[in-house]
């Protein structure tokens, strides 16, 4: 195991979890909980809520480890998706979106998410392509996609922010996704 790459190591840990190996589960938690908690916090903006989502997600990871397919997704992608969906559920359930400066800070920041010029290069092979493709979208399309995925904004919240009808936001998302897909599949 010492020569395994990080994804391979995580795959092995997930496989062990599927067999009920609790030590492997602890190692998995040690390896990825900081990153997954960061993703939950990014959406929820509450340390307590992020930790609760992390807890729910790890319980799910333990129960569903046997369903992970290494030929379909990287281990982190699979686990991060579990966390994101739970965080989206939580923020919808709580119907909580912190108003004012924090939202503005998020919105000020979303352009920099797509623009990696001041950030470390993305790790995954799709990273550069995603950045390039996001850069080809209109700012409203790019902004609404990032606000939704990255910060968990609902379509209604995006519409409120841009002071535009929800149907317009749906249109931005739909057209943005179509263009993104065409670009990503080139």
């Amino acid at each position, binding site marked *: 195991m010492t020569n395994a790459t990080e994804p391979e190591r995580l795959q092995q840990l997930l496989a062990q979890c599927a067999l009920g190996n*609790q*030590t492997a*589960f*602890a*190692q998995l*938690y*040690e390896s990825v*909980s*900081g*990153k997954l*908690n*960061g*993703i939950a*916090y*990014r959406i929820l903006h509450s*340390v307590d809520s*992020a*930790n609760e989502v*992390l*807890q729910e997600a*790890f*319980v799910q990871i*333990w129960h569903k480890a046997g369903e992970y397919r290494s030929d*379909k*997704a*990287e281990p*982190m*992608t*699979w686990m*991060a*998706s579990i966390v*994101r*969906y739970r965080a*989206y559920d939580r923020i*919808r359930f709580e119907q909580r979106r912190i108003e004012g400066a924090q939202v503005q800070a998020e919105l000020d920041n979303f352009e920099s*998410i797509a623009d*990696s010029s*001041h*950030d*470390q290069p*993305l*790790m*995954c092979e*799709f*990273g550069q392509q*995603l*950045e390039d493709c996001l850069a080809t979208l209109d700012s409203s399309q790019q902004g609404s*996609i*990032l606000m*939704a*995925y990255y910060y*968990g904004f*609902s*379509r209604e919240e995006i519409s409120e922010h841009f002071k535009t009808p929800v149907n317009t936001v749906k249109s931005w*998302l*739909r057209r943005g*996704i*179509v263009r993104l*897909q065409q670009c*990503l599949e080139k």
Partner: protein
Amino acid sequence: MSGKINQQDFARYFSSEVVDHLASNYVMGTLTTRVRNRVDALRNGFECRHINERILFWENRLSPLDEKTPELAPKAQTWQNIQAQLNMTPQVASGSVQETSKKFDWSSLFLYRWATAFSLMLVVIVGVAVMQKPETVGNLSYVAVLADENQKPQVVAATYGDTQTLMLDILELPEVEEGESFELWVTSKTDRQTRSLGEIPIGQSSFNRQLTDAEWRLIKDSDSLLISIEEIGGSAMGEPTGEIVSSGLCIRLSAWQQQDQA
């Protein structure tokens, strides 16, 4: 149940346009609960594996955005809650994890792991820098190696808890224009806000100053430090406005020292 689908609706889910719309919005979290439940019911069924494939496509393609998200150490209690919820045997499941969390919090554990990965850099750079400090300064509490975008170390920042002193060893920083200076910032791990720790004098190889109580609290809650180029006098906005030239994670060392001394 809202996730159930009748035969008429079912045919729609073989249109590639509908499938891609549903899959992409599913991954972005923008479907209503009712539609999302419906997609959940579909994606797990044999007939609609194509929907699952498209969901996986979007998860994989958008996942690089998650790579950029900074880590946030979870509370020690979270792991204990997970173990309790799963009725796990603490001795087996926790292993080194629980033993470690008794000594210091999770953030330290992860910073420790980070530090392990960069141990060579820390030993060579931090070790030498720390050893050269006068003993009267106090116990080293936090240290950060600030590096440029190519991970080349530029500044070693160390704080000493006993005297609340900040010490900077400036290895290499870029040239600045006349009228510009460097400003040091700390990013909170609690609220992710970046706050100033003041300017760094130009042309000095080392620098130290006393931190106020408020600044010391910022250090104790620090996730990382960074340096930006600002106009002389510092950023007027209370946040970095110029180019970020250097950054690095803040590592808490006091727990290890106490452990060593015990």
